[in-house]
């Protein structure tokens, strides 16, 4: 039997209430009954005692004990009367109804004029109320009547049991009534509960059969309309969700398609370097299947180099790390790794990257082109220099043989042959100087080609500019001597050390010095070096022909020479300054010219001090 909770509670309340009521009524009525009965017995006993006392005066005065005995004996037959005894004025027992003997308690009872009842307990006989009545004001004696208390108790008990039966009946009836009533209230409530549970499980089509007009009915009605509204809301949300899912799927499909059609390989790794995504291009590059890659460790599949940049990218998500990596079929790839920042995945407590993305591009052909470029440069250098060496060498031999062997033997007879010999000598000198020029051109061309294609291996060493300048001075001293020019230097004593390639920097100074000599017919050339604002500035100052303003900008470009190349015979290739600019710019510096035509030129370059050095020097200055 299903007992509803409501009923259980009601039952509990009924029991408690009932128990309280039952106990109080039981006690109060019991107590009243007891009082009534005692009172009744007392008055009964008093009446008996008085009547005995009244009627026994004569007999007692006559000392007719047997009559008294007979009289008191008949009283014992009255219900409730347990014993009767008579004592004389001295308290001497005259007659009694005790069989077989008089209990000790009775003998102890004081005789008094008082007719008040006394409670006594007689051992072996029970509780009694002893009521006494004086005979002739106690002059003759006293009559004592004992009323049995046990009978009172028995009557009380019977009455109590009756009352309890009655109460139980009432109790059962009330419980039954409560059950019926509670059920009537709780049944619709149960239905309603069941209904709301169904609603909670999104069963909006469920029905509830409550048509009553009371609060429950109202509640049921409200719930039903709420359910309808809810189901509408849910329907709307479901539609919106479906739309959102479709949009999401489309976006995802779009992204996947884009990724799958990328020419570059895409590799996504989690924070532990485990592969979580690859695209078909990547699988193809390594000749592996996607299933062989997913979930594997990057280090196991792609080796230490890639694992290293992936590791670094994770710890520095803003930087980009690259490395070369061997692909299938002996091709070469370039891997670019970047850390994934949590911008799109805001995880709490992850300050570091949450993984890495690696893009791998097949650079086999670029590498091939690069290699071809390098090969081309060295081939050209070889192929051009070999014939040039031969031309130059054989011309030198011709010159030597001519001077040493042939001309010594030839007798010069006339002006004509003398002139011819002069011509031959001059022409040989021209061939020699032109081949020299060609050699220099090739060197410069190769230099600039290498600089521009990044094929130069730069050294990074401590550079003392003073030393560089004096080495350049040594290398160009022959030029100065030839032209009879004065060379002076003004170099700061405490010139700080730079970091760079000292050979290349010397090449710059040599170029500037030889230009200065070349374009200074007479006068001086000075080289100055000083420190200013975190830079070392080196200037080559001459008193030569100068450069017009219009030409000053262009002379740092390749093959650009100042002046009219048609009238002024070019005395170089026009590659010296572009090479200088490349070298200086590689060192992070700048190069410029200040010049007044006819007065002279100042070519300067500035090289930055390394940041540390700059800071140290600035700090040490007061």
């Amino acid at each position, binding site marked *: 039997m299903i007992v509803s909770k409501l009923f259980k509670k009601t039952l509990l309340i009924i029991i408690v209430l009932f128990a309280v009521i039952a106990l109080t009524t039981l006690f109060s009525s019991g107590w009243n009954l007891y009082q009534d009965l005692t009172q009744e017995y007392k008055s009964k006993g008093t009446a008996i005692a008085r009547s005995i006392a009244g009627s026994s005066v004569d007999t007692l005065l006559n000392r007719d004990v047997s009559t008294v005995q007979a009289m008191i004996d008949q009283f014992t037959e009255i219900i409730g009367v347990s014993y009767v005894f008579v004592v004389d004025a001295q308290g001497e027992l005259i007659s009694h109804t005790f069989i077989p003997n008089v209990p000790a308690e009775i003998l102890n009872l004081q005789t008094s004029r008082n007719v008040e009842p006394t409670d006594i307990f007689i051992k072996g006989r029970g509780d009694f109320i002893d009521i006494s009545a004086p005979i002739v004001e106690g002059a003759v004696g006293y009559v004592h009547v004992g009323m049995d208390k046990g009978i009172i108790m028995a009557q009380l008990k019977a009455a109590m049991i009756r009352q309890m039966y009655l109460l139980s009946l009432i109790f059962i009836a009330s419980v039954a009534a409560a059950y019926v009533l509670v059920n009537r209230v709780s049944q619709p409530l149960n239905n309603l509960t069941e209904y709301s549970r169904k609603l909670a499980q999104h069963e909006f089509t469920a029905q509830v059969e409550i048509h009553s007009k009371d609060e429950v009915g109202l509640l049921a009605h409200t719930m039903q309309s709420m359910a309808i509204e809810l189901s509408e809301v849910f329907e709307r949300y479901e539609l919106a969700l479906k739309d959102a899912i479709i949009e999401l799927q489309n976006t995802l499909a779009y992204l996947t398609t884009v990724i799958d059609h990328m020419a570059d390989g895409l590799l996504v790794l989690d924070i532990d370097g485990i592969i979580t995504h690859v695209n078909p291009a990547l699988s193809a590059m390594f000749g592996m299947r996607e299933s062989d890659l997913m979930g594997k460790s990057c280090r196991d599949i792609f080796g230490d180099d890639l694992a290293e940049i992936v590791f670094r990218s994770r710890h520095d998500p803003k930087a980009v790390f690259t490395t070369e990596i061997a692909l299938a079929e002996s091709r070469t790839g370039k891997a670019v790794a970047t850390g994934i920042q949590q911008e799109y995945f805001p995880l709490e407590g992850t300050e570091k990257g949450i993984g890495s993305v690696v893009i791998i591009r097949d650079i086999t052909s670029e590498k091939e082109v690069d290699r071809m470029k390098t090969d081309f440069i060295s081939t050209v250098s070889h192929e051009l220099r070999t014939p040039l*060496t031969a031309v130059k060498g054989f011309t030198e031999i011709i010159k030597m043989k001519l001077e040493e062997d042939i001309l010594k033997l030839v007798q010069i007879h006339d002006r004509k042959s003398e002139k011819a010999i002069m011509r031959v000598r001059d022409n040989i000198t021209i061939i020699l100087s032109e081949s020299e020029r060609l050699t220099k051109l090739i060197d410069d061309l190769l230099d600039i080609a290498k600089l521009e294609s990044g094929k130069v291996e730069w050294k990074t060493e401590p550079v003392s500019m003073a030393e560089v300048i004096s080495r350049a001075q040594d290398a160009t001293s022959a030029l100065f001597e030839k032209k009879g020019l004065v060379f002076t230097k003004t170099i700061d004593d405490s010139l700080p050390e730079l970091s760079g390639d000292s050979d290349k920097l010397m090449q710059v100074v040599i170029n500037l010095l030889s230009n200065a000599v070349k374009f200074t017919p007479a006068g001086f050339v000075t080289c100055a070096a000083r420190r200013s604002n975190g830079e070392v500035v080196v200037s080559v100052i001459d008193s030569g022909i100068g450069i017009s303003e219009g030409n000053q900008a262009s002379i740092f470009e390749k093959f650009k020479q100042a002046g009219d190349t048609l009238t002024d015979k070019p005395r170089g290739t026009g590659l010296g300054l572009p090479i200088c600019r490349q070298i200086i710019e590689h060192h992070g510096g700048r190069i410029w010219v200040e010049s007044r035509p006819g007065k002279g030129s100042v070519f300067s370059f500035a090289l930055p001090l390394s940041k540390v050095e700059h800071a140290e020097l600035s700090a040490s200055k007061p």
Partner: protein
Amino acid sequence: MPKVLIVEDEPLIRLLLEQTLEGLESCGVEVCAADNGIDAVEKIKAERPELVLLDVMMPKMNGFEVCSIVKQQLQLKEVYIIMLTAKGQEQDRLKAIEAGTDEFITKPFSIVEVADRVKAVLKIRM
């Protein structure tokens, strides 16, 4: 009689070098030539020249290989080797030093310089 071996694959340059050293023959210097690395190693083994003028760029076996065979494998330290490296190919110089060359002359060279160097090595006064 001191011997000089010219190792050069370009016939013209070989000829040029031979002509440069022609003048030394009167001082009793014997000049011979090889046009490839393998041949050069054979000739060095057989003739034990005092001096070798060794070009770098050669087919079959390049100058670095010849040099390291002679200096390291054959342990012919007494053979003086001058390598002819191309100007601007700085890494060639490093390779030449690693291979054990005694010195180098950069191409394009001046024949006067070559003759002077050879004379200095052979200690011949003219």
